[in-house]
């Protein structure tokens, strides 16, 4: 279990993480979601005792990271696959990690097998492709057979096969009863990986709960209406309390009503309909909508 209690981090005047509190339960994959610069990596570094919180604290199974004895046996983390000396072999990298936490040398071979790097174990890590580096990072995280795992954007830059592999891997780790926290800025990725979501923007909590719940809540259900009598239908729908938007191409988007309800109103008032189609907003749109105000860097499109 991972707990954050009022976690805050300031770098000079930037508030990277702002009073975050959440609990990550075991046995599930929890997605840690937020746009670029939201503070995901900073939060993870504070959970792992690398960065000192300005205030608040993070606990792993009730203890701070520094209080853990042989921490790799409790927590495994992949924050950055490049945290390896490029001239050191994959095996040597894992050997010193294993040694530092009193793990037997054979464990190195086991995790190398698990991630499929046995054949290249003696090659220098600097020559690894991104996917191989990522696997080496995961091997390091698994070394102590920990109950708690943290992954920071583990699928960044991976090919579809690699993404699938990591996804299934994290799910199997959670199925074994471990706590798995994985960060990402892609909701679509998290939708298929994580059962729970902690969503942050500009360092603040936006939402916390199950993934399906989040998607349902977040995805706006709207109906697209085309009709020669829109000027008559529009006010009728507004009277019923639905939100109505005029689209550029002469259609209406109605939010909050089902297509049945709109059809009934149209029929009762003798309005001819040319189109009545329910729209389901994409996950990406939902995410944009929720984090819209809290995106750190806005791209100016088409200007």
């Amino acid at each position, binding site marked *: 279990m991972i707990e954050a209690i009022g976690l805050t981090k300031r770098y000079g005047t930037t508030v990277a993480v702002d009073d975050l509190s959440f609990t990550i339960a075991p046995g599930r994959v929890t997605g840690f979601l937020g746009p670029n610069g939201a503070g995901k990596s900073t939060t993870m*570094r504070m959970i*792992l*005792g*690398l*960065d*000192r919180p300005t205030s608040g604290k993070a606990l792993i199974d009730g203890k701070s*990271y*520094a209080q*853990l004895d042989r*921490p*790799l046996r409790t*927590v495994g*983390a992949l*924050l*950055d696959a*490049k*945290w*390896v*000396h*490029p*001239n*050191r*072999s994959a095996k*040597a*990298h894992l*050997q*010193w*990690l294993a*040694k*530092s*936490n*009193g793990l037997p040398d054979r464990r190195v071979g086991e995790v190398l097998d698990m991630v499929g790097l046995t054949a290249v174990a003696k090659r220098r890590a600097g020559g690894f492709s991104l996917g191989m580096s990522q696997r080496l990072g995961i091997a*390091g995280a698994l070394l102590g057979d920990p109950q708690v795992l943290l992954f920071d954007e583990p699928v960044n830059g991976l090919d579809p096969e690699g993404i699938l592999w990591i996804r299934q891997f994290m799910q199997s780790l959670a199925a074994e009863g471990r706590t798995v926290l994985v960060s990402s800025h892609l909701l679509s990725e998290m939708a298929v990986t994580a059962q729970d979501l902690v969503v942050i923007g500009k360092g603040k909590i936006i939402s916390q709960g199950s993934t399906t719940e989040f998607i349902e809540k977040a995805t706006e259900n709207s109906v697209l209406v085309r009709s020669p009598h829109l000027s008559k239908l529009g006010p009728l729908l507004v009277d019923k309390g639905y939100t109505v938007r005029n689209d550029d191409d002469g259609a209406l988007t109605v939010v909050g009503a089902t297509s049945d309800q709109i059809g009934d109103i149209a029929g009762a008032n003798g309005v001819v309909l040319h189109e009545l189609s329910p729209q389901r907003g994409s996950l990406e749109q939902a995410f944009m909508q929720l984090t819209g105000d809290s995106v750190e860097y806005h791209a100016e499109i088409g200007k």
Partner: protein
Amino acid sequence: MTLLAVERIKLFSTRSPWWCMALAVTLTVGMAALIAANTNDEFPLSVGVSQSFSNFGMIVIMVMAALAVTTEYRFGTIRATFLAVPGRVQALIAKTVVVAVLAGVIGEVVAFGSWGISTLIKPNADMAINSSVEWRNVAGTGLVFALSAVLAVAVGTLVRQTAGAVAILLVYALLVESLIGLIPKIGVNIQEWMPFMHANNFLTADSAALPEGAGPPRLDFPFGPWGSLAYFAAISVGLLVVALAVAKKRDA
């Protein structure tokens, strides 16, 4: 103990320490051979003369020691280290100990290697190590190398950047300490308190062997040779303590 083993694995599983060690030993001992081969009646070979290139080895070993820390910061492995060993002070002390012991061993190899090769080349020269001054001059090299390595690890930990740490160490040890002597009157008084001057005093005090002008400036040191070593040690360890306190406080 495990931490020492960890740092040993880390150090020896990269290439730069091997390069530095090889360079320090071969170049220093090689130059000692060249010096010995060129000694003659006018410039006779002696124990002190055989050691006159050991500063080169020391500088290379300091670069190695600084790199042992700064490369960890550069490649982010310091974070992997602190994840494995959250007690940062312990981890860094273990690293310092491993690097210092290695530096000490290299120092002895360099010193006795230089002495040995000189003896081989000029078997008739008076190369017997039979005074405490001579013993200090040769066997003391390891101690000076080890303490210089401690100093370099401390600077590396504080600065974290390879270029910065290496430049600071080398410019300070090789240039600043001697340039300070240019300041009229007070220059020498300051020099008498500078750490590498003391390291040199420890190695060469009372040894008349160096030709005039070749050795370090003859200063009026406040301590005798062993006092100088203690002073050098105090400064190196003091700087290490500061570095450890800083590393403990700041974000990794």
